[in-house]
């Protein structure tokens, strides 16, 4: 209907869906299911049940929506998993599998993306878009498969229009330009764009700081807005800034294809900046908390550990540690004190971000496209100017914006899936629904774009961006793996100072060395270049 570029967007969406399904399968099958099936009966119950203090509100929809309460203490998040080396009768090595699944999903995504890139590059032949414009219009525009007179009429009309457009463009490019004015306008536009980017970065930083303050003072005092401030701000920025960039780019007076590239670049920088500011602010918060807890609760840690060992011992009715003098205590699982768990918190943040992003997309589609179309269709009769041609008119299907949104969503998933194994599952659901929603929206509310962007060339560009995002997403997780000590009370890695000790214990020794060498970024970059 709308041309090959819109079709290519949906193909891309479907391909992403496929990847997410596989990632979901990996995490679900190898991590969540064994834990759910075999983890529970074998101890470590305290960290799996909701603490008594929160139990009252645990099943409320509000807390569920926030992914705290019952959802927090479930298979969905990192904190749930046990640290025993092997569980169940299969001797399933839980921590190892968790780690490997994380590494494996990243590795798999990497392989798939590079393979698709290589395939695309071969198909394309690296052709140049801009030359032979008229020749191709002349010799390849007629579709020989047409066998229907109506379609043929349409085709004649569209060919004529296409020729006329190309002629107009040609005539315009032959006009003399005032070079100085154009250059000045372009510099001004770039300056404005930089300001916007800086402004949005600062805004996010500010908002995350504020949310830390709120957290310190206790979240119950504030309403819905304060609690979800960060996520809503990020989503809103993602919604409004691209249109701002569009307006700015009209100053620049570029050829449409070049203008589109600038637009894509700016949106990319925007999302990147937002995401990284968010991550850095989170890291700051974690460091702060870690230091805080380390300094004040070392004693508390010992107490809690002690209580927990007693509790466990009482459950098994096994040997009581020799240096303990207290009798076995029968404690209800919900009452056992537990330590803080920053990984779950990080996972929660990611999940909340994803959910709010999803909501924003849906609402934008509904309001931006559907309501707008309804408004234009029905109010056109009683309005001063022609609504369909001027503002607001029907909205176009913004391919590049949507693809970028998809790519960044995927980046968030990659980043967060180490802390919250449920993220691929959520993403699968999200992709599924958004595919149908967007399909319906395109069919009923949008008109074809005026500027047709050739689909084949840009595919590789999107793949390259995806690869880049993959790298950037793995960096924070890797950083936390090798430097920040895991929380002492949750997750499968808590007995180690640093997660990399798992490798030393579980793998044969040579593997650890190889892994150390392979993770050297210097090796990865030439590998990429080789692929290209």
């Amino acid at each position, binding site marked *: 209907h709308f041309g090959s570029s819109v079709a290519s967007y949906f193909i891309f969406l479907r391909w992403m869906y496929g990847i997410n399904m596989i990632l979901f399968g990996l995490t679900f099958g190898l991590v969540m299911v064994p834990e759910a099936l075999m983890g529970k009966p074998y101890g470590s119950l305290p960290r799996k049940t909701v603490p008594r203090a929160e139990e009252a509100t645990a099943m409320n929809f509000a807390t569920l929506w926030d992914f705290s309460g019952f959802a927090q203490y479930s298979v969905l998040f990192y904190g749930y998993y046990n640290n025993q080396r092997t569980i169940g009768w299969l001797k399933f090595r839980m921590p190892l599998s968790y780690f490997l699944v994380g590494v494996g999903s990243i590795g798999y995504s990497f392989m798939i993306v590079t393979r698709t890139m290589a395939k695309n590059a071969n198909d*394309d*032949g690296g*052709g*140049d878009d801009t*030359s*032979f*414009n*008229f*020749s*191709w219009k*002349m*010799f*390849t*525009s*007629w*579709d*020989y*498969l*047409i*066998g*229907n*007179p109506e*379609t*043929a009429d349409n085709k*004649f009309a569209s*060919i*004529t229009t296409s*020729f*006329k457009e*190309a*002629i107009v463009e*040609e005539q315009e490019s032959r006009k003399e330009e005032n070079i100085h004015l154009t250059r000045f306008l372009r510099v001004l536009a770039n300056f404005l764009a930089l300001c916007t980017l800086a402004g949005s970065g600062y805004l996010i930083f500010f908002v995350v700081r504020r949310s830390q303050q709120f957290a310190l003072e206790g979240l119950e005092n504030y309403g819905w807005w304060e609690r979800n401030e960060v996520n809503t701000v990020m989503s809103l920025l993602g919604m409004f800034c691209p249109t701002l960039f569009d307006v700015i780019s009209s100053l620049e007076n570029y050829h449409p294809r070049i203008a589109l590239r600038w637009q894509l670049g700016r949106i990319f920088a925007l999302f990147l900046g937002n995401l990284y500011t968010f991550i850095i602010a989170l890291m700051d918060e974690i460091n702060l908390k870690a230091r805080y807890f380390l300094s004040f609760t070392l004693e508390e840690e010992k107490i809690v550990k002690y209580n927990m060992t007693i509790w466990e011992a009482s459950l098994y009715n096994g040997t009581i540690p020799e240096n303990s003098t207290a009798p076995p205590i029968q404690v209800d699982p919900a009452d056992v004190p537990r330590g803080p768990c920053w990984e779950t918190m990080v996972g929660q943040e990611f999940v909340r971000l994803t959910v709010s992003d999803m909501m924003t997309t849906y609402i934008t589609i509904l309001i931006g496209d559907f309501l707008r179309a309804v408004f234009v269709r029905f109010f056109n009769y009683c309005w001063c100017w022609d609504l369909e041609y001027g503002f607001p008119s029907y909205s176009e299907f913004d391919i590049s914006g949507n693809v970028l949104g998809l790519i960044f969503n995927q980046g968030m998933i990659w980043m967060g899936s180490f802390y919250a194994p449920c993220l691929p599952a959520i993403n699968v659901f999200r992709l599924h629904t958004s595919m149908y929603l967007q399909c319906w929206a395109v069919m009923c509310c949008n008109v074809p774009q005026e500027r047709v962007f*050739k689909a*084949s060339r840009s595919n590789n560009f999107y793949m390259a961006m995806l690869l880049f995002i993959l790298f950037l997403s793995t960096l924070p997780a890797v950083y936390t793996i090798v430097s920040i000590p895991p929380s002492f009370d949750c997750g499968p890695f808590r007995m180690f100072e640093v997660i990399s000790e798992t490798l030393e214990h579980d793998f044969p020794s040579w593997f650890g060395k190889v892994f150390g060498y392979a993770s050297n970024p210097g090796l990865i970059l030439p590998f990429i270049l080789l692929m290209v």
Partner: protein
Amino acid sequence: LRLFYRYRDLAPQLVPLDYSNKPAVTLPYELIGSMPELKDNPFRQRIAEVFSEHGDGNMTLDDFLDMFSVLSEMAPRDLKAYYAFKIYDFNNDDYICKSDLEKTVNKLTRNELTPEEVSLVCEKVIYEADVDNDGKLSLADFQHMIVRAPDFLSTFHIRI
């Protein structure tokens, strides 16, 4: 075999079922041009002329088979480019000159463009594709240009 039945369906009284003694049967252009796959195509006359034996548009079974095999999905790109060149070369002088281009444009737009616009388009095409700078497109120029086109293979294709 399917193609043979299609050929025969166009004029059952002319085409015998038995081809083993190679009868010389040609179908006139009017019948070919009325096939549903071709009747909306602005270039059908040129297609028939290119593939017919004597260049008059009347086709034997062999010509018919050749035509559909070149236009099928499986024909190699260079072969298609060669035949496309011949189709667009209206005066059969082995070069696509400006008048050929003008005729192509007019057939594509059903004469909707003004003569100045047509002339502009043709000049642009020659400017873009003429590598040896002789003011017209030779087979080499045409091939050089068409193999880089992303939709050439998908549009220059008839399914039967």
